[in-house]
């Protein structure tokens, strides 16, 4: 179980660094989402299920959705073409 925890911790560090270094904002949000998910598993291992439920619902769910809506509002979610998403 210790090894599993260390793997998750390493994943957290990698996520935290790659959030800042990824060029696209959309990728940053997805990485941030996975960070929250791993964090909730770690809360579970630390025997605090209360926090795990809240982290999964708020960190991975609602916060990311709000980020997505904001990206849409500032038109940062466009593909390279810029017209692709308007057709759909």
């Amino acid at each position, binding site marked *: 179980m210790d090894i599993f925890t260390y793997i998750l911790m390493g994943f957290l560090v990698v996520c935290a660094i790659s959030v800042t270094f990824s060029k696209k904002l959309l990728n940053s949000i997805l990485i941030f989402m996975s960070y929250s998910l791993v964090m909730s598993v770690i809360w579970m291992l630390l025997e605090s*299920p*209360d926090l795990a*439920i809240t982290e999964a619902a708020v960190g991975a769910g*609602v916060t990311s959705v*709000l980020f997505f809506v904001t990206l849409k509002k500032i038109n940062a979610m466009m593909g390279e073409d810029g017209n692709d998403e*308007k057709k*759909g």
Partner: protein
Amino acid sequence: MKRKDNAFFRWFFGETDTMLGRVEMRPQQEYTETASDIREVMQDSLTQDQTGDEEDFVLIRVFHRLYRVAAVFFCVALIAVLLINVSWLPKNGGADNPVNNEVSARYIESGLQETGAVNIVTGMILDYRAFDTFGESNVLFIATVTVLILLRLDKEKKAPAKKGMPVYQRPKDELTIAQAQSRDRIYEPKNNVILQVVAGFLVPILFIFGIYVILNGHLSPGGGFSGGAIIGAGLILYLNAFGFEKTERFFTEKTYKWVSFFSLTFYCLAKSYSFFTGANHLESGIPLGTPGAILSSGLILPLNICVGLVVACTMYAFYALFRKGGF
């Protein structure tokens, strides 16, 4: 000549283009230089002639180099300070940590008898420290109000600016709520069947799970905040699948107003009496009941329901305000 019947050789010798008509192609627009473009370029080179390039100034070059060195130095120093601080923290789970004082001992030993909650965490945050939780619920409400001030759109268009009006008095060029509604649908899938079927399965399960988490807050992990967040996520999924027309049948601005008002007022009345009696913890008068039953532990269950309602409304209101500027 026989070779040229093959499609590959026809392509190889340049007679046909096999990709023609299959790949979407767009002719490149011809670049035309307008007079204003030329003037702009000339203006740029003129300014550059007058001021010189950045490389000509020794001080600016030195500053830029120093800036980078200082940035790296600051980052490394900050990381070092934080790591040194972490190394001074007591070992996790040690017996003589400062956390293990009489407060936590009291919570663990007599929490069940005094609050009646099997889940010690809920007993702590909604009984011993209920006033902190009241502040947190109010913070959520204030955050919604702030987002409302920043992102809310008007129902009708404002009067156009008159000539000669000072800049700060001119109405901002904002969308009305009808325009936002029509613009809202540009990127969203309209009546997506996959999303609607999945939401039809998931939303009731999410609601029931959220209600379960709230009602069992004093028995099992979870509580008002987690359950409220789950219900809020279900509301957001429902809104995404079926649009604003469906959600406005049961959740409008008025609903949000009254639900938040009643929850916060009930919480305030139920818990702030101890504030007026010298912050002594007074008995609520409700019998604690048998630990483990749903109807037990006095005021914790109603307070959990209040917090859950406030959190669910806040999540939905955030999403609706971010997306459309109203709900």
